[in-house]
């Protein structure tokens, strides 16, 4: 199972972040969330936190999304020493998506009204 992201449907409301933070930390704070939404002028990019990586990258690339240049750091799922996101704000402990338990019941998917996030089997 995985969460399929269709960024063209995302409206940038960030409700996935609140759902995640409320489910995992019991507090409303997007900084405690394991999913973040990056907002560009023409589209929004929801990115789900992946495994922690100790080292920062030697080089940074550029990713083309719908013809717009986006910093690779933004599309990268890793929680790393460089980025401000995917860390508990008080302790700095890295965060990673756990699909809200077993069997998976991701709260971000439940709160995604435009269905940009979908739980799919494959």
């Amino acid at each position, binding site marked *: 199972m995985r969460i399929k992201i269709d960024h*063209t449907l995302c*409206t*940038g*409301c*960030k*409700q996935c972040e*609140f*759902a995640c*933070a*409320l*489910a995992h*930390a*019991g*507090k*409303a*704070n*997007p*900084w*405690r969330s394991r999913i*973040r939404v*990056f*907002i560009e*002028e*023409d*589209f*929004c990019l929801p990115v789900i936190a992946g495994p922690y990586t100790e080292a*920062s990258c030697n080089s940074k690339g550029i990713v083309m999304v719908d013809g717009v240049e986006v*910093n690779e*750091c*933004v599309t990268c799922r890793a929680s790393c*020493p*460089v*980025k*401000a*996101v995917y*860390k508990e*704000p*008080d*302790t*700095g402990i890295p965060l990673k998506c756990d699909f809200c338990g077993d069997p998976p019941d991701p*709260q971000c998917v*439940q*709160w995604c*009204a*435009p269905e940009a996030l979908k739980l799919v089997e494959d």
Partner: protein
Amino acid sequence: MRDEVRMRTIGPRSNWKNGPTNKIAFFIQNCEETMFGWKGNILRVDLTNGATHVEEMPAYLMKEYIGGRGMAIRILFDEIDPAIDALSPENKLIFATGPLAGTGAPAASRFVVSAKSPLSNCIANPVCGGYFAINLKEAGFDLIIVEGKAPNPVYLEIENERVFIRPAEHLWGMTCSEVEQTIKKNMKDRLDEWQQDLLSVVSIGPAGENLVRFACVMADGGRAAGRSGMGAVMGSKNLKALTALGTGDVAVADPDGFRKAITQFYRENKPAMDKRRNDGTWYLPGRANASKSQATLNFRSGYSAEFAKYEDVEVIRQAIRVRDEACASCPFACGKRSRIKDPAYPLTAKGPEHETMALLGTNCGIYDIEDICRANYLCNELGMDTITTGCVISCAMEMYEEGYLPEKDLGFPLPFGSLNTFQLLKQVAFRQGIGDLMAKGGMPLAAHYGHPELYMGIKGLGIPAWHPQAFDALGLQYATNNVGAGHTKSTMPFYEGRKDPAGYVEWTKKDQDYVATVDSAVMCWIIFHGPQWGDKLAEWLSIITGKAHTVEGLNYLGERIWNLERLFNLRAGLTRADDSLPPRITQEPRVKNRVVDLERLLDDYYRRRGWDENGVPTRETLKALNLQNEGAGVV
């Protein structure tokens, strides 16, 4: 290397600096936190002395005034003399969030901007969406009170309970989007890409700097606290912008219960959400036009055949839409980002929304959606309220066509539909030529040329898109709103009883009180559209704050807030004569062959409100609302 890079992340560092350094101490600190939905801090900024203070939020404000609009009127009522000049340093500007903002409650990321209005000379409380409200809450503040006047242009930077007043000479004169880009660019070496993206900027454009009396406050690249000229108040204080970035928590009393209630709300309202996301407010111009109720040619008509092609939402979507854009926390996402094909305007803009399409569109005789987009884009960038601007320009157009306004004063012809409108918008914002007179508002312009009846405004604010003659209750609602002709201060009368006079006067009162509670919880009234949503609002407030709220209790508080605003207006010198409509609405049957019989409706409305025939609350009414002391001097 690693430490050096880490300096750039404000999350862990800033909290370590001010707070406990180990997990156990942090846990204890969190256990002591008892305030739910609120941060409990008021930020007071004294621009004259360049000082900032943090005050504790008084408990009575949270209990008796809910938040946002209610708190703002209470503070203004206590701290300023309503009779002052709105553009003087004595006026105070309040940015207020509510208990729901930043909790994840749908459609609650909104803040109220409140002060005495320079346009209407009464209370003003426009509400604005975007991301600023959640950022402000996360940074640790519920409310900002801005006082005095800075000697030089400044902007206010808020970052996790740290507040800086920074010089803004380099930003002065910039348009709203330029301000946002410049501030973000200057922070590049401190913030990473994510933090720059999350940083929220509220600013004024050149119109606000030049004290145009209908200038608005713009937030997050296109959201506006539009009505009543709050941009001019901000400009009079030499405050160019505010920025907010926060990483703190907003505690919810019952997180699991809250999550379940919201999930339930999502399931129940899926079709409404999908429809609103697809249509935005773009289905409304077509609907208003088809029912002959849309402001057209300075309210001379309710229908235009040229605009009829936009009755299908898909036509507008195909023409200009880039993507659907939500405010933070809003699953309805009625905002639309748009772009036109004209290469001279390569930038995207928010909107235009229904009101803009009507007032800058059909009301000025401009029927092409791309032209409306250009006008909307200019207004957003210059920082002007599209509704009042539209009414002022349509007034000038009618006076030009009737021959009252000579072409030599304008410098160019200005018949209805003229694209010289774009030139005129810039002249108004920079106060050049006739723009200087127009910037004072529609009433001074129309009176200058001897025809005050041609400005379609109430208490100075331009009348919104729905023609007041379209529904009986609408004229009464516009005329009696405390802020003037506000389009968001009562929900539109789409309900069964609207044809029954006894029904709709009572409904108007109920509706206005209800919207006062919605604005105080700072929810979006587009979502909680009508008093039937009161129980949902009470439920969410109870779950989030942990204090029981009931529908009756909220209605009582709403009525109290409404009456307090009325007392503020009376102290500012307003009378029954200001609760009026332009003669075109009360005398000339332009739409659906009827006029608004306002005087009769007003008598009925005042009686139901418990006010005397001059619109002054009686002692008994104030006693029932526990406002006896506030009424001293006017009652």
